[in-house]
């Protein structure tokens, strides 16, 4: 991929990471890779909006060089401190001695704590702008979408919003625009991204969307820092974010379990049949094997969660325990939850799950279901009925 003009004199100069599968540590599975989007605006003054992850810095600089000599860059806008967008700064800043870095106060502090460089830095706030010539860059602080330093950059003359990590997707592609790629993959990745990164920040997102809508910005293109650029009906992703942020759910269930000798798995399968029999769609995941990132995306809009585990050392198993710890951080609201599992002598898993659920701020809506060793036909029938009752609650 070379540079691509996305608006007159505005170029994508980022990098496509086809290979990455584990993102920030192992917290996010990027099954379809990702991109680090960096945008170059050529006017009387030259500005670069965001950089790329450090291993791709040279590639970004090559892309910039196809449009302008990097030494001519006047401003490098840092919308966000995180390394996948700022990692290119150290190499780039050596090549553009006159460039100023532009960002929020928290961005300046954060960048210093990453790179320990004293770059010429211009601190900006909401309402501040920089005149490039015919074009202007306006700044909108967006704290906790998704870090305290986060900011959106807007170019009114091109009706171009560059909201950094908002509205993105981890999706590597040779195309640059959302309307050019498979729509199922696009929306699946947009949802995964929201669920895994932005879910706990819904109240902040709702308010920011309201604030930006009141600004009456003309927006014809939304160019995020990951994935595809929205140019056809760009507000569709904003409307979708507004809905997700409200924690709107539908009558659907997600069963997440871990099993030792498949007894808890037998229960999970029969419970799922019961839920389905109630006419409610259900997904079933063995969390020791499943892709967490995908499970979280399925949970985003599902009204019902069921967590299952065998009892091991009087407690639940480690993968489901870790998963519940992750779920706690997302602060799910307006959900119906219960637990199930098989045990050998003294139980324990179901009680521990109930406690984890309460700690995550959710309530247990149906008494848990627990059987000793391998469930017999009567007990399996109880699993089915448990599932059906749960399904009825969700409708």
């Amino acid at each position, binding site marked *: 991929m070379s540079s691509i003009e996305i608006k007159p004199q505005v170029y994508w100069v980022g990098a496509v990471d086809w290979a990455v599968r584990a993102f920030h540590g192992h917290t996010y599975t990027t099954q379809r890779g990702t991109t680090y989007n960096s945008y170059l605006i050529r006017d009387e003054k030259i500005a670069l909006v965001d950089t790329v992850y450090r291993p791709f810095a040279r590639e970004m600089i090559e892309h910039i060089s196809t449009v302008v000599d990097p030494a001519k860059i006047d401003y490098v806008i840092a919308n966000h401190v995180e390394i996948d967008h700022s990692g290119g700064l150290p190499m780039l800043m050596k090549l553009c001695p006159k460039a100023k870095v532009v960002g929020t106060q*928290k961005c300046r502090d954060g960048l210093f704590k990453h790179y320990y460089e004293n770059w010429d830095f211009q601190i900006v706030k909401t309402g501040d702008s920089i005149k490039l010539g015919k074009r202007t860059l306006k700044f909108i*602080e967006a*704290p*906790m979408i998704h870090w*305290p330093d986060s900011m959106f950059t807007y170019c009114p003359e091109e009706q171009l919003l560059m909201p950094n990590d908002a509205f993105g997707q981890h999706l590597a592609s040779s195309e640059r625009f959302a309307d050019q790629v498979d729509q199922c993959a696009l929306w699946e990745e947009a949802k995964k991204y929201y669920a895994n990164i932005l879910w*706990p*920040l819904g*109240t*902040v997102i709702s*308010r920011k969307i309201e604030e930006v809508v009141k600004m009456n910005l003309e927006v014809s293109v939304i160019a995020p820092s990951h994935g595809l650029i929205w140019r056809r009906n760009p507000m569709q992703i904003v409307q979708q974010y507004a809905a997700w942020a409200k924690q709107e759910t539908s009558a659907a269930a997600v069963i997440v379990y871990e099993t030792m000798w498949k007894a808890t798995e037998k229960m999970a399968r029969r419970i799922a049949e019961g839920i389905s029999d109630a006419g409610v769609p259900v997904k079933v995941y063995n969390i020791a094997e499943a892709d967490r990132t995908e499970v979280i995306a399925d949970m985003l809009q599902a009204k019902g969660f069921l967590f299952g585990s065998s009892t091991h050392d009087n407690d639940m198993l480690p993968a489901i325990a870790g998963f519940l710890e992750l779920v706690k951080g997302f*602060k799910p609201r307006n959900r119906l939850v219960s637990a199930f599992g098989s045990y050998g002598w003294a139980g324990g898993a179901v009680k521990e799950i109930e406690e984890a659920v309460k700690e995550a701020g959710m309530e247990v809506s149906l008494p848990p279901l627990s059987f000793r060793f391998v469930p017999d036909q009567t007990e399996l029938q109880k699993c089915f009925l448990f599932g059906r009752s749960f399904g009825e609650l969700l409708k």
Partner: protein
Amino acid sequence: MQKYRCTICNYIYDPAIGDPDGGIAAGTPFEKIPDSWVCPVCGAAKADFEKV
């Protein structure tokens, strides 16, 4: 005096300390902080705080 926690980043507002950098003097109860004040750590709104 009642402490409050930011539900976004878990920062604790302690009235005994206030938020001098944010213009809130030590000894200011949470209820007396203007609505335009934001969490000094993450920038979340006053409405995002809950009693500890």
